[in-house]
C-alpha cells in the first residue's frame, strides 16, 4: 500500500481497490491506522474517500437471507445421506520400554517449561527516546503508536479471562481491536484498559490519543466510545466520564480541568505521521512539547514571554521550521544550540 498512488485515486479507483474495500467492510486496526494517516497526509482526498465508503456501506444494507429455521432440517438430511460411519475399534498395544522412558522425559520437560513460564509471566516494556515514534502491535493485534520519550508496558500474553491492560507514560495513539460481539453482554477479555497517571480509560474498540505528562493527562477520542475513571476509585461500572467521538478532556492529576469538543479530532494524532501540530498554542505549550518529546532544555530570558500566544493552527514537519515560525510570528529571537533553545526579546 502506498500513499503516493492513492493520492491520484478517483471515486472509481477507490471502489476498485482491494485494500480500500477490506477497510470499509472489516475495518481492522492496521488498515485504520493506514487510512487515517493517509487522510491526514492528503486531506483533499477526504471527500472522495467518504463518498466511496458511503456507497459500499449503503450497498451492504441489504436483506440478508439466513434461512436459520431450516438449519437443523438441512443438516439432518445431510447426516442421513451419508453412509454410517464406522467407529474404529480401540486397539491396545504395548509401548516399547525406550518409548516409555522418552515419553516420561518429554512430560517432565513439558512440566518444567510450563512452571517456568508461569513463574516468569513476562511484561514487555517499550520505550522511545526523544524524537522517536514507534508502532507497537499488542498481543490482540491492536496497534499503538508511541510518541517520543514515552513508555508502554503490558503483559506478554493475554489470557481470555481477564481484561486487556496496558500502562502508559508519555503520549500514545491507540487503535484498539473491537472484540465485543454481543453489546448486551461484555466479556472480561473484550475490555481494554489503559492506565496512566491516576486515570483509567476503559474501552471496547476505538481509536484515541492519550498524553500523560507532567502530572497532566489529556485524552482525545477519534472514534468509538470510552469511559474515563480514577485509578483508585473502586471500579464502579459507568461511574466515570463517558467520552464520545471528538471529545477532548484534560486532567491535572485526578482533577478535570477542561472538557470540550474538538473541531478536528484527527489533528490530535497527526504526530503519528511525523507532523508537529498545535492549535492556538502559547509559547509555553510549544516549549513543553519540545522538552517532553524531543528532550530540549529551554532557556528563557523573561518568564512572562511564555504566556505569548499564537492564534490558529500550526502544522510543520521539522523543529527548525517550528522555531523559525515561532520567532517570526511572535517577533522574538529563538536560537537553537545543541539540545538547548534560548529565547530572548528582539
Amino acid at each position, binding site marked *: 500500500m502506498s500513499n503516493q498512488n492513492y493520492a491520484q485515486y*478517483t*471515486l*472509481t479507483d477507490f*471502489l*476498485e481497490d*482491494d485494500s480500500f*474495500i*477490506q477497510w470499509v*467492510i*472489516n475495518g*481492522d486496526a492496521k488498515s485504520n491506522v493506514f487510512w487515517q494517516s493517509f487522510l491526514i497526509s492528503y486531506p483533499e482526498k*477526504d*471527500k*472522495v474517500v*467518504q*463518498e466511496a465508503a*458511503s*456507497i*459500499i456501506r*449503503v*450497498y*451492504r*444494507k*441489504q*436483506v*440478508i*437471507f*439466513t*434461512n*436459520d429455521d*431450516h*438449519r437443523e*432440517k*438441512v*443438516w439432518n*438430511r*445431510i447426516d442421513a*445421506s*451419508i453412509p454410517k*460411519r464406522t467407529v474404529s475399534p480401540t486397539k491396545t498395544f504395548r509401548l516399547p520400554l525406550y518409548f516409555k522412558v522418552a515419553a516420561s522425559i518429554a512430560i517432565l520437560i513439558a512440566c518444567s517449561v510450563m512452571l517456568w513460564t508461569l513463574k516468569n509471566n513476562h511484561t514487555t516494556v517499550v520505550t522511545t527516546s526523544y524524537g522517536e515514534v514507534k508502532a507497537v502491535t499488542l498481543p490482540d493485534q491492536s496497534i499503538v503508536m508511541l510518541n517520543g520519550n514515552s513508555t508502554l508496558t503490558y503483559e506478554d500474553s493475554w489470557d481470555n479471562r481477564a481484561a486487556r491492560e496496558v500502562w502508559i507514560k508519555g503520549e500514545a495513539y491507540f487503535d484498539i481491536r473491537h472484540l465485543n460481539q454481543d453489546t448486551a453482554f461484555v466479556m472480561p477479555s473484550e475490555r481494554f484498559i489503559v492506565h496512566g497517571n491516576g486515570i483509567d480509560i476503559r474501552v471496547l474498540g476505538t481509536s484515541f490519543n492519550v498524553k500523560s505528562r507532567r502530572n497532566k493527562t489529556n485524552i482525545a477520542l477519534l472514534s468509538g466510545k470510552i469511559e474515563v475513571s480514577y485509578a483508585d476509585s473502586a471500579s464502579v461500572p459507568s461511574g466515570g466520564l463517558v467520552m464520545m467521538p*471528538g471529545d477532548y478532556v484534560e486532567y491535572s492529576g485526578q482533577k478535570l480541568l477542561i472538557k470540550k469538543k474538538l*473541531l*478536528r*479530532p484527527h489533528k490530535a494524532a497527526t504526530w503519528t505521521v511525523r507532523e508537529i501540530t498545535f492549535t492556538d498554542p502559547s509559547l509555553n505549550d510549544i516549549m513543553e512539547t519540545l522538552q517532553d518529546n524531543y528532550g530540549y532544555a529551554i532557556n528563557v530570558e523573561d518568564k512572562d514571554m511564555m504566556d505569548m500566544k499564537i492564534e490558529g493552527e500550526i502544522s510543520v514537519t521539522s523543529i527548525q521550521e517550528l522555531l523559525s515560525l515561532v520567532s517570526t510570528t511572535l517577533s522574538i529571537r529563538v536560537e537553537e544550540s545543541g539540545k538547548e533553545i534560548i529565547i530572548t526579546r528582539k
Partner: protein
Amino acid sequence: MDNKQEQHILLWKSFKSGDWEAYTSLYHAYYRSLNNYGHKFTKDLNLIEDAIHDLFVSLWTNRDNLGNPISVKNYLYKSFRNTLFRKIKAESRFFDLQDDNSIPFEISYDQQLVLDEDENRLQQTIKDVLYKLPARQQEIIYLRFYDGLSYEEIAEVMCIHVSSTYKLLYKALENLQQSLTIVSIGIVDVLVKILNGRTDLATPSASNVYPPDFY
C-alpha cells in the same frame, strides 16, 4: 478476517482426514452465507437447500480426493454455485441450458430497516442503477462489496477470466458513476450531508464535491 480464513483452512484439513466435528463446523460456518448467496439466484428454498445438501454430501464422500484450497469460502462458493445452477436449469424450461447469463441475480433492500433520509436517497440511486445492470455484473458487485472477494477469487467462483472480472466490474462501476452524475444535484446534496455527519469539513459547494476527472 485473516484469522477466520486460517481457522477455516485448519477445519478443512481436519475434515479431510475424516474429522466429523470439523465437517459439522464447516457446515455451520457457511450455512448462512451460502443461503444468502443462493437466495440472489432463486427464491425457491427447495433448490437452495438441495444444493447445500448435495454440496456437503459430496464433500464428505470425496474428502480423500479434495485438494487444499487457498480459501475455503472460495471453494464452497464455486461448488455451491455450480450445483445450484445445474438445479435451476434442470427445474425450468425457460433457462437456456448453455447460458449462465440467463440466470438472474437480485438483491433486495429491507423496507423495515430504518435509514436516515440521506442514506435512503443514496440507496435509491444505487438501486436504480443496480437493477438495470446485467445479472452477472450485479453478482460481481455483490461478491466484491458484500463478501469482499478479490478479482481473482471472483473469477474463480464465477468461472470467468480475471480480465473479464475487471471489465465487468469496470462497466458496472461506470454505469453507477454515470447515474450518479445524471442525478448529481440530488446525490451531491446527499453525499455532502452524509459527509458532514461524519467529518468536520466545511460544506463544499456542489461543484467541487467530485474531483475534476469525475465528469
